[in-house]
């Protein structure tokens, strides 16, 4: 079980991974040594997998297309869905692979430069794979929120009084 302290520390790092161990120590009351040790351990154990920023590509002026694809799969004896899922995750075009409950089996997130590119990938690479029964492609039209962050808020920050009792 993750201790309260560790949970808080990890969340803090997740919110802003640029905080130095010194800054983390000031804000949590833990020692710098303790924090440095913890972080190294988490890196070694692949608990902290990577450090990277959340980029709003649309705002940066870069055009790209994403699609969510529902995939129906024939499970393989002895492997279930694992074998096909592991195969799919190797494709760099596929950014996420989830096993789902409900009307289909796997959900994939695919990114490409154009709709054409994504459609071709599905038609030529994905659909013909052995054990894949069917695919349904849903193109993402707009991103409102991602990873818990509102990308489009448009609301002006409400103003507080400068001084209040």
């Amino acid at each position, binding site marked *: 079980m993750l201790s309260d302290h560790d949970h*808080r520390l990890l969340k803090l790092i997740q919110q802003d991974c640029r905080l130095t161990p010194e800054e983390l120590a000031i*804000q*949590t009351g833990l020692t710098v040594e303790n924090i440095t040790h913890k972080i190294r351990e988490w890196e070694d154990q692949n608990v902290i997998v990577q450090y990277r920023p959340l980029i709003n590509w649309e705002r940066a002026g870069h055009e790209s297309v994403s699609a969510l694809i529902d995939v129906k799969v024939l499970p393989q004896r002895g492997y279930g869905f694992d074998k096909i899922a592991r195969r799919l995750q190797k494709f760099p075009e596929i950014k996420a692979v989830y096993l789902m409950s409900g009307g289909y089996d796997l959900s994939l997130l695919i990114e490409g430069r154009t709709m054409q590119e994504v459609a071709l990938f599905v038609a030529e690479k994905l659909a013909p794979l052995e054990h894949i029964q069917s695919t349904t492609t849903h193109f993402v039209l707009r991103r409102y929120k991602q990873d818990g962050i509102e990308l489009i808020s448009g609301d002006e920050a*409400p103003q*507080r*009084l*400068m*001084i*209040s*009792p």
Partner: protein
Amino acid sequence: MKRFLNPTVASLPPSGIRKFFDLVATMKDVISLGVGEPDFITPWTVRESGIFSLEQGQTMYTSNAGILELRQELTRHLALTLGLIYNPESEILVTVGASEAVDLAMRALLAPGDVALVPDPSYVSYAPCAIMTGADVRYVPTRASEQFRLRVEDLAEAYTPEAKLLVLSYPNNPTGAIMTREDLLPIAEFVREHDLLVLSDEIYSDLTYEGSHTAFASLPGMWERTLHLSGFSKSYAMTGWRIGYVGGHPDLIQAMTRIHQYTILCAPITAQVAAIEALRSAETAKQEMVAAYDRRRRLLVHGFREMGLSCFEPLGAFYVFPDITATKLSSEEFAEQLLHEEKVAVVPGTAFGPSGEGHIRCSYAYSTEQLKEALERISRFVWRRL
């Protein structure tokens, strides 16, 4: 037109905060650490329930004491979190902020000739509300050397036989001081011996960063003698909704409700509905806010100590109260010069009572980026003075 004014009102001193407010309003690009309200927005689930209640057309008066369902949720919450048992039918009154509850309590209890004992420094409204009833106020000083806890010796010193009411306000605005059960027990003993009633404003009780909060009314023999005041402004970031409450002996609550029914009628229904939702489902959101305050608190205390100022570690509310006497400036001078030279607004400690001299109140209800920038500016200012 001044001759028409009620002399008691006319003689109320202007709030030390107001003066500063006017000054700051004339300036641009000011970073303010001067606010007494959360920077968070009310959790979405709470806002959403307010919106839904409006959509449903809940736009009427409620019963004077507040929606029964809210009073029931409140009694459940108070029992669960603080061990305080109240009857929702007769021992809880929902008010327009804790502010209204302070006013009602003073008016229901105090008469000309009575004395209210008020810790110094503390929140700005206790003394004026007491004075408006015609009662007198005696300040009980608290000090940094005692972590700004109320000591029974100081209480005894300030005591007079006319004293009827003792105000307690912990976690404290402006100092951030808390009082543990051990700290409160001798106060309870004093209250019993001198037959006092206690107005305990515990609006910051959820914002306690070490140990758990002890409600004064939960101490042996104190339930009958205590009006337990609190509200949603701080814990749930709901200042603008204007919603608070008070729990206490039915005789006292009934008297307060009588004034409330003639002057206010009831707290706004939208806010009451939202408050129910806050109690039911905003616990996680609240815990996240508390965790964020705790980090900022450490950041600010560290920052002031790095500057070479002595800064007692506040364990509650969202204020730090550093000692600025090393700069040889008074609280007001410090605040005014800091504002002019570095464009940082803080509130002089004296705005909260004479014992605030030598201190400034800095709120940490700001993002860490803003706090870091403010600290940098303040340290430039302080270093020019040391």
